[in-house]
């Protein structure tokens, strides 16, 4: 029970003692509360500052984003308004060589200035063209339309284009890994596989790449002058093509690509052979690639080979006989770094008319890519040529090739 002080003196003493003992306690309590409040306020200040910083950051982002979006919108509007905005992509390739042949002397060879155009036609097709000027004149090398939205994995192509025969026959000269097109291919196909006609490609719905192509053409071969490209002809005199190609990843870094092609002309009548007969040209191409993914821009090895078997009736010395010839080339190339690569090409090229005669070529070469669009290549070729009577291609040959590209330039997937 609490007892109260009985007199004023005792009351005053009690009050004094209370003050003495309670004041510090109260002061201590107040100070502790103040500290706690201070720390809370400090924490709140820090949080507020963080929130303000974040708001600033977000505002900056928003403002830069909206400014940029505004710029992009303006750019899109101006592009839409510009009359040239729907023009096709245009590019030009210049391909020239300095050459020296032990049998024929030197020459500056203006090989080609190739102008390329490509654009979508509409949602259903795109069109491209390559017009080439060279010392032989100006020629439309390719001008073709390709469908882009056919159903059932089909793609149709029509016009003038490089038929889907083999690997390198559908690659333009300046895109080859070596200076000159292998003679074995030149003789079997007639240079690039240029053809006027139609082609239908089918991508098989398999888990691996498997593609088939069928085509029908006036003839195949840019330099194949044995068949007239301009004349009308019966359907038996067209050339029909079939090709299957596949690709397998052996590992992430190693791959193999294999293709088999056949070009069949049911009735080929050359001058001096009134009877005529069929022509069958078969080809097999194999490409092995080592492309280490993490260093593919500066390392890699490619080995590629193509084999050709031709069978046709050839008029020779007043007699037309069926002749069969077998040619091939093989090359290996190593990428030394991003700029430099080196390789070796072996070429075995029999004559189509006289398969017993052949040309065998050995060509080491070095390529210096100053950039993706500027390339120098030096090639030495030793040719043992028994086909040409003038010996112009026999012996040692030296080539320095300079290839440059300006503007938009691509030959697409098949030329990779």
């Amino acid at each position, binding site marked *: 029970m609490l007892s109260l002080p009985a007199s004023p003196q005792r009351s005053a003493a009690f009050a004094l003692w209370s003050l003495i003992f309670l004041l510090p306690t109260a002061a201590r309590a107040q100070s502790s509360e103040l500290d706690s409040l201070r720390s809370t306020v400090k924490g709140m200040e820090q949080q507020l500052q963080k929130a303000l910083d974040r708001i600033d950051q977000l505002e900056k982002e928003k403002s830069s984003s909206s400014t940029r979006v505004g710029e992009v919108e303006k750019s899109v509007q101006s592009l839409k308004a510009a009359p040239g905005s729907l023009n096709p992509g245009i590019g030009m390739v210049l391909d020239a060589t300095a050459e020296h042949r032990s049998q024929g002397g030197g020459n500056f060879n203006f090989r080609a200035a190739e102008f390329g155009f490509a654009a979508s036609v509409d949602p259903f097709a795109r069109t491209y063209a390559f017009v080439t000027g060279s010392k032989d004149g100006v020629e439309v090398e390719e001008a073709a339309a390709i469908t*882009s939205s056919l159903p059932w994995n089909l793609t149709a192509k029509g016009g003038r284009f490089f038929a889907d025969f083999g690997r390198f026959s559908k690659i333009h000269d300046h895109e080859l890994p070596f200076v000159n097109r292998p003679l074995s291919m030149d003789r079997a196909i007639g240079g690039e596989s240029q053809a006027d006609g139609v082609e239908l490609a089918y*991508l098989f719905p398999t888990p691996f790449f498997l593609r088939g192509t069928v085509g029908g053409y006036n003839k195949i071969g840019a330099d194949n002058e044995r068949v007239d490209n301009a004349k009308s002809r019966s359907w038996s005199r067209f050339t029909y093509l079939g090709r299957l190609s596949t690709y397998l990843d052996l590992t992430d870094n190693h791959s193999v690509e294999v293709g088999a092609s056949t070009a069949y002309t049911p009735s080929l009548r050359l001058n001096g052979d009134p009877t005529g007969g069929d022509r069958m040209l078969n080809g097999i191409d194999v490409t092995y690639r080592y492309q280490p993914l993490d260093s593919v*821009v500066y390392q890699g090895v490619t080995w590629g080979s193509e084999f050709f078997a031709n069978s046709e009736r050839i008029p020779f010395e007043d007699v037309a006989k069926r002749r069969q010839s077998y040619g091939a080339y093989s090359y290996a190339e190593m990428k030394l770094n991003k700029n430099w690569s080196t390789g070796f090409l072996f070429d075995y090229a029999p004559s189509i008319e006289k398969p017993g005669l052949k040309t065998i070529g050995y060509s080491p070469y070095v390529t210096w890519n100053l950039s993706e669009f500027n390339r120098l290549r030096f090639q030495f070729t030793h040719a043992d040529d028994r086909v040409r009577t003038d010996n112009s291609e026999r012996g040692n040959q030296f080539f320095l090739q300079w290839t440059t590209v300006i503007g938009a330039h691509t030959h697409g997937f098949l030329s990779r």
Partner: protein
Amino acid sequence: MKTKVSGCKNWKVLLASLAIVLIQTGLVFAQPVRVIASWPALADITKQIGKELVSVDSLATGVEDPHGVPMKPSFVPKLNRADVLVLIGLDDELSWLPALLEVASNPKILPGQSGYIDCSVGIPVAEPPTRLDRAEGDLHPKGNPHYLLDPVYAKNVAQNIADGLSRNFPQHQAAFEKNLKAYTAELDSWIGRWEKMTAPLKGVKFVEYHQEWVYFANRYGLKRIGAVELKPGIEPTPNHIVDLVQRIKQEKAQLLMYGAQNPRVPQQLSNETGIKVLHLYSSSGGRPETDSYIKWIDYTVRALVQAAS
């Protein structure tokens, strides 16, 4: 007899109705959406948005040079079967993807179609070229495409992917949006952590092999003083290397980052100047421990902070 026929009819009507309801609700024939992404980082973000509703495959593995992915024919069947294609855009994949799309026979994923999901939409693009001329190197006409190195922009990417998936598969829109919200919250949490972790990187001077660090540098305050490449895509000349050695010494640059490029020149620069060389890939998947976007950025941040301190 009459009653029996009527009962049979009722059963048929009931079964047909059930089948329609099941098909409508996606419970029957519910195949996952087939997504092909150009890079593993995009594949991972797509997986976070689509979860079990999508099956995702990436074309590149993550170790490749950003502009040197081999044009493998084995990519063609994958593109052929894809419902949607997710890509970086800004011409990042220009050297290999358009040519593959030409032969993939899949109109759904061609540019401009609904299955073509360009993740660069809405990204504030850095370094738009002021002069379009190849004398400036292998330019990106639309600006620098390496925005994935800024984790804040990964939120735009996730939004673009969610929008693209919803556009193509509106029946799953609610699920995509829910997953987007969760992933964005997770990204925000990591972005906060990386903000703190990168404090020591502010003001750190660096050299890059290829111009791909601008977004990361802008976000975290690093200062770029030069590139090993003479111009984008152009290998250095001896004179350029001499100049770069002087600049590294003058500016006291601390870090040199390279990816799938030849390590010879970075090593030479390190020997001559003492600059620290870091081998960092341009996407997740480059290392086993960076198999997701977040792990990749986290690895990158940690590696840089450790090298700078």
